[in-house]
């Protein structure tokens, strides 16, 4: 991966930016999520999660299995206010 490779497409974050925050001490998933919004966009981490885990595992010299994940939040997929309220939505 080059430094400019985007690993979170929803929030437009490159590997370089993630590594910079890790070097500033944000070396856990929750910390870096708060600093950069990684994993909080429309896909909810479906793309970036595994890449971030790899970066964190490397930085902390741990195996990926030892990295704590961030909380999985509802809804599982994007949901319109209108669908929840039972009103018609425009397509």
């Amino acid at each position, binding site marked *: 991966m080059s430094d400019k490779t985007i690993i979170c497409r929803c929030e437009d974050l490159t590997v370089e930016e993630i590594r910079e925050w890790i070097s500033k001490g944000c070396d856990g998933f929750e910390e870096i999520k708060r*600093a950069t919004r990684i994993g909080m966009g429309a896909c909810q981490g479906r793309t970036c999660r595994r890449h971030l885990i790899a970066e964190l595992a490397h930085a902390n010299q741990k195996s990926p299995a030892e990295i704590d994940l961030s909380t999985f939040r509802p809804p599982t997929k994007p949901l319109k206010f209108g669908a929840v309220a039972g009103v018609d939505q425009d397509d």
Partner: protein
Amino acid sequence: MIKSADVVVIGGGSIGCSAAYNLARLGFKNVAVLEKGYICRGSTGRCAAGIRQQWGTEMNCLISRQSIRCFEVMNEMLEYDGDVEFIQNGYLMVTYSEKEAAMLSENLKLHKKLGIPVQLLSIDDVKEIVPVINTDRIIASTICMEDGQANPFKVTDAYYRAAERLGVNFYTYTEVTGFKMQDKKITAVVTDRGEIATDTVVNATGPYAKLISKMIGHELPVEPERHQIVVTEPLDPFLKPLVMNFFHNSYCQQVVNGSILVGYGNPTEPKGLNYDCSWQFIEELAAKVIDQFPVMKNVNIIRHWSGHYGISPDGQPVMGTVPGIEGYYLALGCGKGFMLSPMIGELIAQCVAGKETTLPIDILNVERFNKGELIIEPAVV
């Protein structure tokens, strides 16, 4: 971990980090901050990021007015290499009833007296500021364009890094489990990673404050009240101010990345710490949102979380000494900790240092609840 400290601050949220920074600035050389998770794990990291001055009590107005002065220069003041994203897009207060409208006009008199620039708006003004808002039931509305939002993670990060540069020791993943006392005086803080000898403790733990107080043998009437918030997909800018609706008890604002944040707390829910997200909340929220902004029916919710206000009996902060327990200080924003954190940190540091405080915080002492001297804040949702 260090063996002893001049002051131990409990809580790594915006108030804890601001208090630590201000203590170090006043010359305390040996300050430790204890945080049971990571910086911003608690209420700061879960809040809706709003910052306002439109309150109904003089102290809330004064502390928030001075805090806004700090937010305005925060990047420079804390020599932050990032941006705390402070934006003054205003707070729009909306009421659907005569009673709430009367409260707004009472508050307006107070704001005028304190020099806080709040305007009463006509329905046409409201439409102009927020074209998508449903004005059908609006009785009265006010706006203060100095109010706004900032990024809670960045604000806390800025205080944390500035404090660290001044020599403050931060211990994350370190939970306070008890205290050592001698004749009603604190002698040490006990954690799951060892002990720190100290005679001075600042409790900045928001909704956990009651639990910390209990360990010291103090009954604190500050209860955790759960609020839930959802965030939507990012949208082009269309909602300039934060809209606070007293009928729906809700707050709604568009943040820097284009997402809409909207939430509320159910005041009838039993008090307590509860980080669950409920489906009932989403259903009620969707109805509240569509009533206020019909176009939002087409907007996707992508994330839902919960956090807590620490609710005091009168809706005002609790600050200062605790009578009967030497060396114990409270620094609690009580539902507005993030937005008041610059001044609460400054005032509590002055109080600990034995200096005269910039604002008269004596009336916010916890003793007021025993004496029955409550000054109720009316403008809360």
